[in-house]
C-alpha cells in the first residue's frame, strides 16, 4: 500500500491580530500534518484559535508567519484571486450557518462553485443533480433554500462542497445550527464520504460530534495541546437512521 500523500502541512503557523493598543495571539507556532483520507476534528473552547486555524486552512485568511502547504501547493504568499482559485478547486466548505444563497434553488446553490470554475451549464446541472441525489435531496432540486429545513440546507451545503471533487472538505461547526436528530444524519454523511476516501477537517466544540472523527486535535490559547487518534469513535453503527441513498 502506497504511503498516503499529505493534504495539509502546517509549520510554525502564527496569527497575531493587532490593534493600536492590543496584540492578540490567536495562533501560536502551530505545526501539524493531515494526510489524504483522514477525518480530523479540531476541538477547543471559544477563543482557543480554532476558528482562526480553520480560516487559514480554508485559505480565507492569511497567517502572520509560518508555512502552509495545501495539497502540494504553497498557499501563504498567494494573491487574493489565486486564493479564490485554490478555495474553488481544492476546498469544499461547509459552514455553521449553511451560507446558501437566499431565495435560490437548491440546484443553483450546488452549481455555484462550478460556475466559478467555468464548467458548462449542462454538465453543472448533471453534477449538481448527482450530488444532491447522494445527500438524499433528489426530490428537492427546485426548492429554494428558505423552503427546506436546517438539516436539509446543510446537506445542500455538503453537496455544494463536493461538486469539484476537492482535496479537502472543511466543515466549521457543521451541526451547530441544526437539531440533534438531523445532526446525526449529517455526521453519517461525513463518515460515508470519509469511507469513500474524502479528507475531512471539522471544527467543533461539541465532544459528541468530535467523537465521530478518527483523529482529534485539541487547541487551547492558540496552541495544540493534544493531537491523538480517537479510540472511542462513534460510528454509523451507533446511529440508527440510515439516510444515505447508496448508489
Amino acid at each position, binding site marked *: 500500500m502506497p504511503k498516503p500523500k499529505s493534504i495539509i502541512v502546517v509549520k510554525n503557523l502564527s496569527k497575531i491580530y493587532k490593534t493600536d493598543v492590543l496584540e492578540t495571539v490567536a495562533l501560536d507556532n502551530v505545526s501539524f500534518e493531515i494526510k489524504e483520507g483522514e477525518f480530523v476534528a479540531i476541538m477547543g473552547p471559544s477563543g482557543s484559535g480554532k476558528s482562526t486555524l480553520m*480560516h487559514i486552512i*480554508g485559505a*480565507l*485568511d492569511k497567517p502572520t508567519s509560518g508555512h502552509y502547504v495545501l495539497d502540494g501547493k504553497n498557499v501563504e504568499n498567494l494573491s*487574493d*484571486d489565486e486564493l*479564490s*482559485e485554490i*478555495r*474553488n*478547486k481544492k476546498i469544499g*466548505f461547509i*459552514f455553521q450557518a449553511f*451560507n446558501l*444563497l*437566499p*431565495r*435560490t434553488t437548491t440546484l443553483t446553490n450546488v452549481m*455555484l*462553485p462550478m*460556475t*466559478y*470554475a467555468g464548467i*458548462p*451549464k449542462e454538465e453543472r446541472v448533471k453534477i449538481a443533480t448527482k450530488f444532491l441525489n447522494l445527500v438524499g435531496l433528489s426530490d428537492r432540486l427546485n426548492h429554494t433554500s428558505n423552503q427546506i429545513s436546517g438539516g436539509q440546507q446543510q446537506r445542500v451545503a455538503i453537496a*455544494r462542497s463536493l461538486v469539484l471533487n476537492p482535496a479537502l472538505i472543511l466543515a466549521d461547526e457543521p451541526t451547530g445550527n441544526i437539531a440533534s436528530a438531523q445532526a446525526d444524519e449529517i455526521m453519517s454523511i461525513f463518515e460515508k464520504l470519509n469511507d469513500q476516501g474524502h479528507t475531512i477537517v471539522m471544527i467543533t466544540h461539541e465532544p459528541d460530534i468530535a467523537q465521530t472523527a478518527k483523529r482529534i486535535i485539541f487547541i487551547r490559547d492558540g496552541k495544540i495541546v493534544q493531537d491523538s487518534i480517537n479510540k472511542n469513535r462513534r460510528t454509523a453503527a451507533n446511529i440508527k437512521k440510515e439516510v444515505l441513498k447508496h448508489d
Partner: protein
Amino acid sequence: MTEFFELLKESIRTLRLNKMRTSLAVLGIVIGIGSVIALISIGQSSQAAITSQITALGSNLITISPGSQSSGRIRTATVRKTLTLADAEALKAADLSAVKSVSPEYSSRLQVVAGDANTNTTIYGATSTYSEIHNLKISGGRFITESDYNSNSHIAILGPTVVEDLFGSSSYNPISEIIRINGQNFTIVGVTVAKGSSGMTDSDDVIYVPLSTAMKQLFGITYLSAISIQAADSEVMVQAQNQVGYFLLARHKITDTTKADFTIKSQEDLLTTASSVAGTFTSLLSGVAAISLIVGGIGIMNIMLVTVTERTREIGLRKALGAKKKTIITQFLTESVILTFTGGILGVIIGIFTSYFYSRVNSSTFTISPYSVLLAFSVSVVIGVIFGWYPAKRAASLQPIEALRYE
C-alpha cells in the same frame, strides 16, 4: 458570449428575487429622469406657445396705446382718452414712409345674446385693415369692409369660441343669424379661424364689429383703446416706431418725450418681454428638474449602497466558493447597469408621456428636447453605475472571512 448571457440571466434572476428593492431602485431612476424630461419639455412648449401667439398677433406690428410709458405707477382701471380716431385718421393721411397700414381699434367686454344663449365676450371695434394687420383669417363669410364702416352697419364677425358659446358647437355655421349686443341686433357675416388660447386669454373669444358702430352706437365714446400699425417690412420697425412717435408727439403738442401721453410697443418688444418671462419660467422649471435629478440620483445612490452592503455576506460566500474579485464586480455592475437602464428607459417614456399629456391638456405644442433626454438619462445611468460599482468593488476587496462575518 455564453458567459455573458449567463451573467445577464443570473443578474436578472437576482434582481427578480428582490422585487421590492429592485422596484424602489427603478422608481428612483424613473422619477429622476421622468421629471427632468417632463419639466424641461413643459417649459419649452410654454415658451414656444407664447412666441407663436405673439407672432400670430400680426406681422411687423406696432401697437400704440393710450397712457404714458414712463409712469411708475401701477396701472389702474382709469380710462385713458388720449388716443382718438382723429389721430388714426391723421396717421393714415400722413402716409409715413415706414408705415404700411393703420388700424384704429376699440375693445371692451359686453353681454351678447343669441336666442336663449348668452355670453360675456370682448367686442372689438375694428376697420377693414384690422384683419390684415393682425393676421386674422376668416373661415367663413367675410370681414368688415369700408362700406360697413362708413354706414355704421350692424354686422358682426365671431370668433370660434363665441360661436360655440352661443350656438353650442364651434363647427356650427352661424352666418345670417342675428345676435343681440347691448340690446342691438347684429347680423353675423363671418367667422374667424381659431388662433388658440394663451393661458387665461382666449383670442377666439371675441366679436368684431365696425369701429364706427362700436364707438357711436355700442359704447358712445370718442377715443380708441389702441391704434395698430403695420410697418412696411421688418427692417423698418424701429424707423416706423420713431415716425409714428414723433408724428403723434407733434399732433399732441408734446415736446418732452418723457411726457408722452401714449405708448408705442412693437411686436418685437412684446416678444422680447414674453420670451424673457418664458425663459425665466423655463429656467425655474429646469431648476426644479435639476433638483429632482439630484434627489433621484441620491435615491439611486442610496439604494445601490444599501443593496450592495446588504449583500456583503453573499459576496463573502461567493468569494469563499471561488469567485474572483473581477467576477463579483462584473456581477454587481451588470445588475446596476440593468437597473439603471431599465429605469432610464421607463423614465424617458414616462417623461415623454407626461409632456405629451400636458401639451394635450393645454393644447400647446409638444416639444421634447433630445438634449434633456440625453442629460437626464446619462446622469442617472452614470450615478447608478458608479454607485453600483463602487460598493461592490469595496465589498469584493474584503477578505472573504470579513465579508462572511459582516452583519
